[in-house]
């Protein structure tokens, strides 16, 4: 397979279709906001969205009606409070009902790892005595260790149709380098059928240390060069997390009209991520 270098618009149009299971990963760091916004512009519907921490990007996609299902482990605005659009969808089915498949962080990590390893399920010591084990019986099962008889918890593998990541760099051959906090990005990338990556920059050659997190080009279906593509999350070495924006989001997303007006003005009315960054005052 040869990696395709595409515009973000073409990358999303080619690889993400209505009804797919899609994981936009990145734990606080390197969250692919530009890709999520492009899916909102292209009005994707019926997606099963997978992320450990839905964060603002899924708050936006859920509020704009892209999703009918969510697989996750912590759905808040970190250090700020609620994700109001996620809450509105679960509490009031607005703009549509969504089903949830809820886990702990350790559980999501195990599910991605199983998917990345070609296993049908993964195991951990966890979920004991929790409501998650009671309410999510379809996806949480206690089984005995075949060797010792000890009880462990089994969770089904996660294998997204598409995983989307944001990374610092790709080289011209399509190899991708991630640095800093990677969360479960490696596992989410290798669990997926297709992998699409947005990057800060494309360089001739990656100056990657020997043990660096490099995804080989033959695992990467498409790359789009999108500077600032993780904003308002961050890309270590390029720009910081806009904590002030995360705090401001609490008011923007609190009511439906204010949320819709913001999305209309900054996402639907902009044609690409550069315009989005200018529109929210995040570009120099």
């Amino acid at each position: 397979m040869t990696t395709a270098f595409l515009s973000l618009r073409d990358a999303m149009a080619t690889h993400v279709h209505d009804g797919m299971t899609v994981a936009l990963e990145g734990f606080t760091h390197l969250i692919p906001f530009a890709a999520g916004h492009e899916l909102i512009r292209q009005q994707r519907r019926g997606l099963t969205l997978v992320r450990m921490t839905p964060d603002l990007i899924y708050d936006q996609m859920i509020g704009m009606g892209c999703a009918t299902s969510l697989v996750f482990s912590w759905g808040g605005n970190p250090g700020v409070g609620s994700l109001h659009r996620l809450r509105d969808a679960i509490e009031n089915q607005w703009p549509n009902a969504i089903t949830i498949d809820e886990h702990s962080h350790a559980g999501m990590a195990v599910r991605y790892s199983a998917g990345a390893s070609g296993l049908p399920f993964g195991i951990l010591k966890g979920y004991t005595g929790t409501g998650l084990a009671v309410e999510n019986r379809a996806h949480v099962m206690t089984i005995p260790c075949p060797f010792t008889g000890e009880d462990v918890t089994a969770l089904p593998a996660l294998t997204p149709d598409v995983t989307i990541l944001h990374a610092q760099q790709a080289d011209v051959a399509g190899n991708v380098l991630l640095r800093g906090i990677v969360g479960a990005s490696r596992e989410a990338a290798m669990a997926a059928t297709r992998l699409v990556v947005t990057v800060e920059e494309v360089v001739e050659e990656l100056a990657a240390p020997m043990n660096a997190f490099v995804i080989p080009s033959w695992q990467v279906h498409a790359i789009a060069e999108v500077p600032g593509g993780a904003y308002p999350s961050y890309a270590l070495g390029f720009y910081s997390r806009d904590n002030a924006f995360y705090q401001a989001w609490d008011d923007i997303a609190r009511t439906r009209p204010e949320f819709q007006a913001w999305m209309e003005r900054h996402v639907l009315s902009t044609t690409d991520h550069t315009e989005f960054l200018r529109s929210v005052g995040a570009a120099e």
Partner: protein
Amino acid sequence: MTTSAHTPDEMMTVAAARRLRNGAVCFVGIGLPSAACNLARITHAPDLVLIYESGTVGARPTVLPLSIGDGELAETARSVIPLPEIFTHYLQRGRVDIGFLGAAQVDRFGNLNSTVIGPYSQPTVRLPGAGGAPEIAAHAREVLVVMKQSARSFVEQLDFCTTQARPSALITDLGVFEPEATTRELSLVAVFEGVTADAVIAACGWPLRVADRLATVAPPTGEELGILRDLHARTRDAHAERVRIRLPF
């Protein structure tokens, strides 16, 4: 320096920080736990090892992170590892001494709810959910819980059990609860200065037992309060800065 003007939140943070011994490996949640751990690290426990679930091991932040994965944590950490390894190699394998948690509801044994208010299938309030908490509580050698106290959040019956926890201490903005030896039920063992046992009982939704010998927690020292306030001031300034990206094209 006078220390009489401290707030209940500051007292809670200081009381929590004092329980962290130097050299312990601590799995840190965001918010109050993070403030308490960093206060301890800057004061009496310089070798406290802070692990944040994002994958940062041995973080030494100069400002408090807003999220669990701020760049500040990565840049000051001894190492940054994949998140699955944090939960398997470090936590599940038994390499964490202290887990530090908060929640929306707590019961008399220290079990925690951070998932829903109301029924799970049709909640009146959908809360963020479990995150790392269930396995932190299951695998850390010791669990501490910090929570502001109210009869609404200290409940007879949790709406949902997110985390089966048996904390060694529950630190509130009024005092400190610890489990009784035989029943494991939390009872009030210490109050903050100027707080009566009756006030703590009134802000608790279950019939709270009070230890025979009720201690009073010493108020924050000038040093503790000064360092905590500096930390919060630096953090506020840092978080207020908007980010501007220089676009290459």
